């Protein structure tokens, strides 16, 4: 089957998008949410735990909430406290007092298992909400660092508990205004491990003396810092642990002295948020990072008589335990189950009630999250236990106190515990785990496609620009059927033996079979392509394959950039990579230009290029000369532009705090400068774009740009010369809609021209004008969406495009592949010039509201994506215009360009998903690598769209040719 290379490239890209989507679905498990997921709905929802549905009829008395178990709770959270620091062989030396309490005191101790990512922020979320946070949660509430889910702290605040917090300021950011008193310390200076803790401890004495709080939370960071500096076996660890032990002793004795007869007892909790690996870091899922100690100390517990092996619980189990202990409702998304040891001293009736409350909450969550919840074993067990509980209640209230009843109650208790365990594990299976099978399937798809793309390179970039895919022979071959069978059996095997839920397995059979068939066909094609190539094309070896310096740079840059994505710093500072490569590219182009013009001038046809001077011979001498100097000036000018733009927006992480021109322009005292700059840029944009437009769109463009300025004035970014203060800023909806009308008009004329050139007259000129009009419509839209201080970016973009197209790409006879790679590099650099970074926080969401009265999802997402990827899109569109408008170029240039663009985009995307899979337990996976993954996939999607556009352009070209 012979297909044109643009069709081939677009097809491959679209399939890759599907593969990446499958990968993403496996990498970011969809969060489990109760139907009352946000706090707003919690307020309206049932605040009290629901009454017993079965038993309420029997007696009103039975539905009362049990009394809280504790009056005051002190939570002492020590960052990176590993279980063996307390329970291990050295525990007696490290933390003598704590160890004494564990062995002899009235306490319960457990090993609490944290879930990866073992990083502080997700762990705090897990401890307070009881759910297991995924990365997608972070993306969902982009601009608000505050925790919006139902959580323990919020419940406590609503119940009127007074809370005091000292320690890591992540808490303060997560729970703003929740604490009666707080003092956050930043964990910014990792090398400081004494001050951070002293800042917490200095409040302790006064706070412990007072009586006006109910919950005290302390978060100590020093141990974690020591771990990062020198690891878990350093000599600094023991003094730090002794210090922690002293603090615990201090708190404990203060609590004991405060304790009054008759009132409820206190509870002191010592826990860690995550452990510490043998190298001292954390984030992964090794035993040392996951196991944290959990020590609960309260006079309500039985006194211990010696060291026991601590039981194992989940970290999230603390949440329902604390909630029930304080008499609060359990957070709705909690997947934890109450720790039985804590409630074992209460009456059997209360114990059953506690377990029932926990079970009810879990069953509600299960109902909301799984469609066929009734088949879950835990749910069924819970129903049985609930019924038995009802019968027990009835007998109990009748005054039956026999041995039989106690035994029956114990049986119900056991049933409840089993049901809780089953439900909890069913829930947490869906959470916080990578769905490896889907990820691997997605990766395999993407890599097959990438290899096919790479193998087709010689054909796709040949003069024909068409790829011969042996589809039919692949489909009829025996290996195809064998592979189908093999893959299908692998699929069945994996899905039947998988423990956790898997997206790929839950797809319908038809889809899975299509995927299996597609994958095997791709594999067969993959094998047969090089085999077939080898037989007839032995003669055309790589003898005349000579690379110029520019080619070497372009290849090395592409490969080097792909490799650099493996380092978190290079992902954070990716803009530096692109600026660096772009600068080098400009210098290389400069060298090419110099070589061309100076060699030419030096010896008239002395060595290799005797044709060139005579070719330009018919030009007037002066024109040649001025053209030469303009060509020579273009690369330095581009370099200067790039340097200026680079200082416009500081992005990245390490140097993001440095002052930049953008901030200077945006400050209110420089508004006049900003207005002048914006006006100048708009004029320049008009001058640069209008050259190749028709009269109608020239007028539309001018009016549109005026509209943009008045929109910016209405929003309050820039000043109108004739209107002064006294007008409040509006949303500028009218002005923006005014601009939208012109944008649509320009798009309309452009499409009309294109259609006419295709159907009515085969006029290349009309076609290139139509293309340019579509491009100018896009420019106008981006002008509207860009912030005022970013208009110079657009301006420089257009200027560089014009100059480069005029003097460099045309004159130096770069081929389509080289031009495409340069366009792609420029596009990437401009993506960062406009202030983007690989962090989700830099996406400008306000763009989604331009011209809209309220938030409407589809246009808002479209506009945000457009303005975020404006740089790459504009350069890709310019590439289409440039390649198809060139008269002298071979007609296959567009196909070559499309193919190169597809290749350039899919190589980093494919490499990146493998990298992310390999680094999935990296410390920075959620903060650095996952956002980048989202950016990569979005970019892939957009490139697929651009390639389709290429496709239509080429399609309209071929009929006009024939």
């Amino acid at each position: 089957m012979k297909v044109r290379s643009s069709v081939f490239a677009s097809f491959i890209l679209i399939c890759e998008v599907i593969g990446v989507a499958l990968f993403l679905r496996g990498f970011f498990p969809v969060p489990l949410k109760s139907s009352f997921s946000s706090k707003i709905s919690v307020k309206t929802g049932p605040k009290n735990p629901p009454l017993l549905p079965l038993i309420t009829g029997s007696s009103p008395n039975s539905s009362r909430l049990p009394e809280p178990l504790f009056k005051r709770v002190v939570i002492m959270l020590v960052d990176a406290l590993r279980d063996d620091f307390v329970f291990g062989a050295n525990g007696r030396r490290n933390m003598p007092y704590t160890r004494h309490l564990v062995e002899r005191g009235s306490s319960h101790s457990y090993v609490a298992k944290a879930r990866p990512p073992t990083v502080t922020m997700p762990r705090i979320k897990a401890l307070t909400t009881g759910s297991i946070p995924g990365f997608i949660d972070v993306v969902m509430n982009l601009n608000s660092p505050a925790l919006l889910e139902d959580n323990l702290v919020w419940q406590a605040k609503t119940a009127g508990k007074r809370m005091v917090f000292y320690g890591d300021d992540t808490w303060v950011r997560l729970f703003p205004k929740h604490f009666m008193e707080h003092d956050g310390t930043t964990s910014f200076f990792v090398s400081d491990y004494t001050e951070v803790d002293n800042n917490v401890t200095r409040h302790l004495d006064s706070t412990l003396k007072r009586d006006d709080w109910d919950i005290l939370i302390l978060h100590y960071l020093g141990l974690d810092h020591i771990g990062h500096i020198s690891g878990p076996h350093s000599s600094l660890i023991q003094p730090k642990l002794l210090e922690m032990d002293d603090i615990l002793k201090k708190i404990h004795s203060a609590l004991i002295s405060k304790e009054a007869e008759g009132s409820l007892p206190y509870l002191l909790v010592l826990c860690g948020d995550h452990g510490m690996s043998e190298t001292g870091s954390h984030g992964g899922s090794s035993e040392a990072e996951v196991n944290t100690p959990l020590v609960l100390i309260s006079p309500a517990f039985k006194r211990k008589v010696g060291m026991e092996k601590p039981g194992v619980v989940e970290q999230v189990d603390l949440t329902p335990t604390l909630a029930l202990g304080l008499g609060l409702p359990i957070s709705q998304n909690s997947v934890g189950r109450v720790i039985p040891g804590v409630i074992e001293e209460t009456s059997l009736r209360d114990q059953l009630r506690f377990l029932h409350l926990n079970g009810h909450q879990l069953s509600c969550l299960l109902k909301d999250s799984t469609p066929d919840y009734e088949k879950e074993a835990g749910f069924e067990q819970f129903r049985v236990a609930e019924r038995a509980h009802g019968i027990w209640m009835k007998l109990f209230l009748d005054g039956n106190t026999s041995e039989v009843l106690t035994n029956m109650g114990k049986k119900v208790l056991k049933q409840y515990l089993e049901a809780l365990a089953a439900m909890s594990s069913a829930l947490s299976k869906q959470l916080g785990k990578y769905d490896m099978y889907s990820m691997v399937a997605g990766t395999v798809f993407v890599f097959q496609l990438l290899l096919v793309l790479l193998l087709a390179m010689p054909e796709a970039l040949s003069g024909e620009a068409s790829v011969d895919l042996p589809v039919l022979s692949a489909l009829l071959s025996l290996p195809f059927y064998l592979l189908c069978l093999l893959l299908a059996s692998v699929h069945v095997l994996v899905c039947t033996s998988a423990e956790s839920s898997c997206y790929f397995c839950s797809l319908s059979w038809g889809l899975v079979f299509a995927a299996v068939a597609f994958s095997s066909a791709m594999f067969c094609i993959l094998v047969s392509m090089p085999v077939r190539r080898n037989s007839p094309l032995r003669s055309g070896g790589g003898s005349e394959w000579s690379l110029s310096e520019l080619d070497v740079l372009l290849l090395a840059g592409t490969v080097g950039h792909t490799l650099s994505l493996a380092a978190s710093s290079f992902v954070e500072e990716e803009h530096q990579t692109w600026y660096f490569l772009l600068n080098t590219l400009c210098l290389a182009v400069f060298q090419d230009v110099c070589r061309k013009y100076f060699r030419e001038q030096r010896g008239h046809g002395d060595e290799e290029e005797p044709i060139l001077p005579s070719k330009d011979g018919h030009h007037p001498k002066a024109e040649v000369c001025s053209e030469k100097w303009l060509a020579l000036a273009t690369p330095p000018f581009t370099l200067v532009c790039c340097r200026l733009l680079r200082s416009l927006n500081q992005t990245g992480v390490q140097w993001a705090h440095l002052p930049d021109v953008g901030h200077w322009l945006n400050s209110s005292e420089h508004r006049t400068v900003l207005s002048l700059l914006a006006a100048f840029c708009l004029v320049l944009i008009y001058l640069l774009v209008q050259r190749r437009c028709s009269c109608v769109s020239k007028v539309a463009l001018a009016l549109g740009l005026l509209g943009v300025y008045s929109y910016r004035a209405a929003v309050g970014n820039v000043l109108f010369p004739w209107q002064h203060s006294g007008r409040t800023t509006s949303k500028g909806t009218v002005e923006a809609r005014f601009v939208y009308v012109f944008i649509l008009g320009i798009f309309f004329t452009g499409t009309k021209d294109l259609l006419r050139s295709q159907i009515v007259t085969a006029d290349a000129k009309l076609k290139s004008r139509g293309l340019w009009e579509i491009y100018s419509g896009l420019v106008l839209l981006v002008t509207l969406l860009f912030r005022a201080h970013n208009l110079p970016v657009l301006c420089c973009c257009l200027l560089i495009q014009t100059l480069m197209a005029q003097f460099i790409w045309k004159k130096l006879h770069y081929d389509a592949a080289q031009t495409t790679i340069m366009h792609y590099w420029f596009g990437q650099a401009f993506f960062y010039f406009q202030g983007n970074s690989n962090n989700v926080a830099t996406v400008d969401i306000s763009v989604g509201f331009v011209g809209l009265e309220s938030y409407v999802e589809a246009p808002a997402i479209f506009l945000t994506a457009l303005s975020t990827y404006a740089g790459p899109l504009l350069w890709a569109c310019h590439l289409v215009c440039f390649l198809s408008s060139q008269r002298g170029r071979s007609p296959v240039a567009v196909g070559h360009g499309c193919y190169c663009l597809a290749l350039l985009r899919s190589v980093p995307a494919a490499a990146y998903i493998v990298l992310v899979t390999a680094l999935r337990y990296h410390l920075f996976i959620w903060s650095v690598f996952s956002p980048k993954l989202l950016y990569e996939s979005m970019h892939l999607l957009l490139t697929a769209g651009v390639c389709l556009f290429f496709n239509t352009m080429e399609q309209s070209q071929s009929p006009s040719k024939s």
Partner: protein
Amino acid sequence: MWDHEIRAMASTHAIIAASVFMATVLPAALVRGFSVYGTHMLWLYSVSGAVTGVSVAVFWLLGITPPTKKHTVGYKLSRLFRSCLYFFLSCLFFHTVVVLYGAPLIESALDTFSLAVLLTSLTTLRCLCVLGPNVQAWIRVFSRHGAMSVWDTCLQITVACTLVGAWVGAFPIPLDWDRPWQVWPISCSLGATIGFLTGLVAAPAWIHYHRKQLTYKCK
């Protein structure tokens, strides 16, 4: 084919490399508290000075510099003056390029300029020694197939190695390792020096192994 020249080149390069080495070792013995990272500027200037002095002396003694037609003192002075001017201009050029690459414009301008001086003394100075202050000759040598002698090829290799070394030296700057050599411009100047030394070794070796294929047109 050019055995004599290759031998001369190898010994010249050995002397220059030794001068770089001495420029690192000697101040360490003489100046208290000298280290390549700590007192980087001092090291940088000592290397540039040593390379400048030794190259000028060696190439003058060797006499590769194209023979001048006139032997008047005035002409020699003007050549000297032009050489100095080119040296300074080249420093400015390198400074501009480095700033365009993203070096801060105002703060640490002195560091940037020192790097430019180092780059100049490693690259431009050699051109001045071998080709003289003659821009046409420079353009010829650095265009494709422009080498007309073994020394031209050698010049191409060393200059390319030095510049690529400095270019590669910028890679580790964004990494968050907090090492002393990641401070601007240490990694770049180290990269340039290492590239230069590599070039010194690579040029005679490459020419030696390709001496059969090397043909120069307008010899």
